[in-house]
C-alpha cells in the first residue's frame, strides 16, 4: 500500500490540453452567438499554450512518470511540437471552409483538441495500455469528424467504413498486445524489452503477437495491405477533415511505431524489418500505380500518401543489419525526417484544395486546377512547389526526404529495394506533373478570381515557401531529427 503520488511535471502539456478541451466544451455551451469564434480561437490558444509548455520543459533528459507509463524524451517533445504546429495550421486552413458549410460548430474544435491530446498520449506512451488509450482517443475523434457533415451520405459512408475497419484494427492490435504480455509478463515497453533480452524462450508467441501488432500499426499508417480505408475516407470526408487526418495523425502513427517496435521489441528487429519490407514494397508499388488512374485530387493524394508512408518505412526497416544497430540512429532519423516533410507537403496540398473551394463548390477534381496560372500565378507556383516536392524533384525538400531514406536503405544493403523505390517514384512523377501541366497549359474552366481570407492565403504561401526554402537547407532539419532521436536510445 505504499503509493507515491506521481510527478506531474513531465505531463503538464497533456494536463493543459485535457483541461482546455473540457473548458472549451463548457464555455461554448453558455455562449450563444460567439461560441463559434470562441471555440476556434480557444483551440488555437490551447495549441499555442501547449507548445510553450513543451518548449520550456524540453530538456535532453529521459524521464518517466505515472508508474513508468509516461515517457518524456526529446523525440516525444519534438514530435509534439510538430503535432501542435500541424494542428494549428490545419485549423487555420479549415476555418473558412467550415464556416461556409456551417460546420464550424464548437464540437468540431473540441474534438480536434481531444484528437491532439490522443496524439500526445500516443507520442509519450511507454505502456501498451497508454498506447491503446491514446490511439482510441485519436481514432474516436477522427471517426466523428469524418461524419461531421451529417447530411452528406458520402461522409457518413466514409465514417462508417473508417469506424468498422478501425475497430477491427484496434482489435487486432489488442490481441497482439495480449500475446506480447503473455510472452513477456510486462505491459511496460521498457519491461518488455528487458524481458525479451533476458529470456530466449517463447519466441514463437512473441512473433505471433508481433504479427498482430504489425497489422494494427500498418492500419494506422495506412500502408498496403491495410490501406483500403485511405482513399475512401480521404475522398468522403470534408476536405478540412481530410487535411486533419492526413497530417498530424501520421506523426502520431510514426511515434507509435517507434515506441512499439524500437522501444519495446527492438530485439526482434530482424523479424519486424522483414514485415515492414513487405508493407513498404506493397505501398510504394500500389500507391504510385493506383494514383495514376485517379481523376479526383483527394483520392490521388490518398494514394500518394500510401506511397509516402511506404517510403517512410524504408527508413524504419534499415536500422539493424545482421544484429548490428550502428546505422539505426541515422535510419530512424531519416524516417522521422520523411514523416515531418510529408506532413508539411500534405498540409500545403490539401490547403490548396481548400483554397480553391468555396461555399457550394468543392475543388476536388484535378480538372478544377485547370488554368490556375491564369487565375492566380502565385498560388499556381505554390501548388507547383508542392507537387514537385512530393514527386521528389531535386532541390525541393521532398527530394531530400526521399534521398535520406534511400541512403538509409542502401547503407543497410538493400540496393535493389532502393532501385525499386526510385523506379516507382518515377511512375509517381507522372501524376504529380499532370497537376502542374493542367495548371499551366490548360484553359481554366472557371475564371473567377480566388476568394479566400487573407490568413489562409498568407499561411498557405508561407507553407509553400517553406517547402522550397527547406529544400535549400535540409541538413539542419535532418540533423535535428537525428539529434531528437539520439536522446531516446
Amino acid at each position, binding site marked *: 500500500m505504499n503509493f507515491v503520488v*506521481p510527478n506531474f511535471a513531465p505531463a503538464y502539456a497533456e494536463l493543459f490540453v485535457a483541461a482546455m478541451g473540457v473548458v472549451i466544451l463548457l464555455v461554448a455551451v453558455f455562449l450563444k452567438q460567439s461560441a463559434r469564434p470562441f471555440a476556434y480561437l480557444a483551440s488555437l490558444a490551447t495549441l499555442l499554450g501547449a507548445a510553450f509548455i513543451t518548449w520550456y520543459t524540453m530538456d535532453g533528459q529521459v524521464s518517466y512518470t505515472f508508474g513508468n507509463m509516461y515517457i518524456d524524451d526529446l523525440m516525444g517533445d519534438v514530435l509534439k511540437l510538430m503535432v501542435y504546429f500541424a494542428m494549428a495550421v490545419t485549423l487555420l486552413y479549415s476555418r473558412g471552409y467550415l464556416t461556409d458549410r456551417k460546420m464550424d460548430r464548437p464540437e468540431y474544435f473540441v*474534438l480536434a483538441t481531444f484528437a491532439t491530446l490522443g496524439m500526445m498520449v500516443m507520442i509519450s506512451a511507454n505502456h501498451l495500455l497508454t498506447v491503446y*488509450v491514446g490511439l482510441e*482517443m485519436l481514432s474516436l475523434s477522427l471517426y466523428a469528424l469524418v461524419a461531421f457533415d451529417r447530411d452528406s451520405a458520402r461522409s457518413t459512408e466514409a465514417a462508417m467504413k473508417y469506424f468498422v475497419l478501425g475497430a477491427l484494427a484496434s482489435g487486432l492490435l489488442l490481441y497482439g498486445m495480449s500475446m506480447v504480455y503473455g510472452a513477456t509478463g510486462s505491459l511496460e515497453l521498457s519491461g518488455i524489452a528487458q524481458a525479451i533480452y533476458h529470456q530466449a524462450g517463447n519466441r*514463437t508467441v512473441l512473433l505471433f503477437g508481433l504479427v498482430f501488432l504489425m497489422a494494427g500499426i500498418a492500419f494506422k499508417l495506412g500502408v498496403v495491405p491495410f490501406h483500403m480505408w485511405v482513399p475512401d475516407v480521404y475522398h468522403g470526408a470534408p476536405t478540412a477533415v481530410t487535411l486533419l487526418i492526413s497530417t498530424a495523425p501520421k506523426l502520431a502513427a510514426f511515434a507509435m511505431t517507434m515506441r512499439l517496435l524500437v522501444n519495446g521489441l527492438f530485439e526482434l528487429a530482424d523479424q519486424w524489418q522483414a514485415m515492414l519490407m513487405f508493407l513498404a514494397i506493397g505501398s510504394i508499388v500500389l500507391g504510385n500505380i493506383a494514383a495514376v488512374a485517379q481523376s479526383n485530387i483527394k483520392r490521388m493524394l490518398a494514394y500518394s500518401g500510401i506511397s509516402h508512408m511506404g517510403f517512410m518505412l524504408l527508413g524504419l526497416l534499415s536500422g539493424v543489419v545482421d544484429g548490428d544497430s550502428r546505422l539505426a540512429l541515422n535510419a530512424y532519423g531519416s524516417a522521422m525526417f520523411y514523416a515531418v516533410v510529408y506532413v508539411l507537403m500534405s498540409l500545403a496540398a490539401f490547403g490548396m484544395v481548400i483554397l480553391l473551394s468555396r461555399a457550394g463548390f468543392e475543388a476536388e477534381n484535378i480538372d478544377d486546377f485547370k488554368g490556375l496560372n491564369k487565375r492566380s500565378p502565385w498560388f499556381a507556383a505554390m501548388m507547383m512547389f508542392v507537387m514537385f516536392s512530393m514527386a521528389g524533384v531535386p532541390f525541393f525538400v521532398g527530394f531530400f526526404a526521399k534521398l535520406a531514406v534511400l541512403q538509409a536503405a542502401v547503407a543497410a544493403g538493400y540496393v535493389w529495394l532502393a532501385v525499386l523505390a526510385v523506379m516507382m517514384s518515377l511512375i509517381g512523377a507522372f501524376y504529380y506533373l499532370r497537376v502542374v501541366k493542367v495548371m499551366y497549359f490548360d484553359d481554366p474552366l472557371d475564371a473567377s478570381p480566388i476568394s479566400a481570407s487573407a490568413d489562409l492565403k498568407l499561411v498557405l504561401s508561407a507553407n509553400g515557401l517553406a517547402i522550397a526554402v527547406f529544400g535549400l537547407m535540409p541538413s539542419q532539419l535532418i540533423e535535428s531529427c537525428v539529434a531528437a532521436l539520439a536522446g531516446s536510445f
Partner: protein
Amino acid sequence: MDFKTFVFYMFATIMILASLRVITARNPVHAALFLVLAFFTAGGIWMLLEAEFLAITLVMVYVGAVMVLFLFVVMMLDINLDRIREGFWSYLPLGAAIGLLMVAEMVIVLGGSYFGLDSMPEPPAAAAGYSNTRELGRLLYTEYVYPFELASLVLLVAMVAAVALTLRHRKGTKSVNPSQQIAVKRNDRVRMVSMPTEKE
C-alpha cells in the same frame, strides 16, 4: 478431471457454440441473445479465475445494459437480411482460406507447448480474506490512474461525438419547454387595458 476442469470445459464449449451461433443465426434477435449467453459463460470462466468483480461487471454492464439496448435497436430496425447475405458465396473461398490459415496458426501457437502449465505456472490461490474488488479499486485509482483518467476522456469524446452527430434543433415543432412554462408570470399572459368609461 476434477470439478473445476469439468466446469471450465463446460463453459468453454457453451461459449464457443454460442459464439458460432451469433454469426450463423438467421434472426438478428437470436444472434443478440446468443451473444448474451456467450457473455454469461465468459463471466463464468472469469469466476473460475477468481476474478469475481470482473465477472459480475461483465454480466451487469454487457448483459444488463449494452445487450438490452442492442436488442431494442435490433428490434426497432428493419434489417434486410438478404442484402446482408449478398455476396456471401463469392467472398467465401477467400475468407474461408484466410480464416482456416489463421485458426491453424493460432492452434499451433496457443496450444499446450507454449501456454501449458510448465511454461505458465498456475498462480497461487489468493488468501481467504482477499478482496478482488478492493485490489482492483486500489490499482485503478493509484498506479493506473493515468490510463484510467484518459479512458474517462475517451468516454467524454464519445459523448461529444454522439451529440454532435445526432442532435438536431428542429424549427417549427409545437413542443413546449416546461421550465419556461412554469416560469411564466401573470404579466406575460394578461394585459390590463384601461378603457375610458363609455356611456350608453
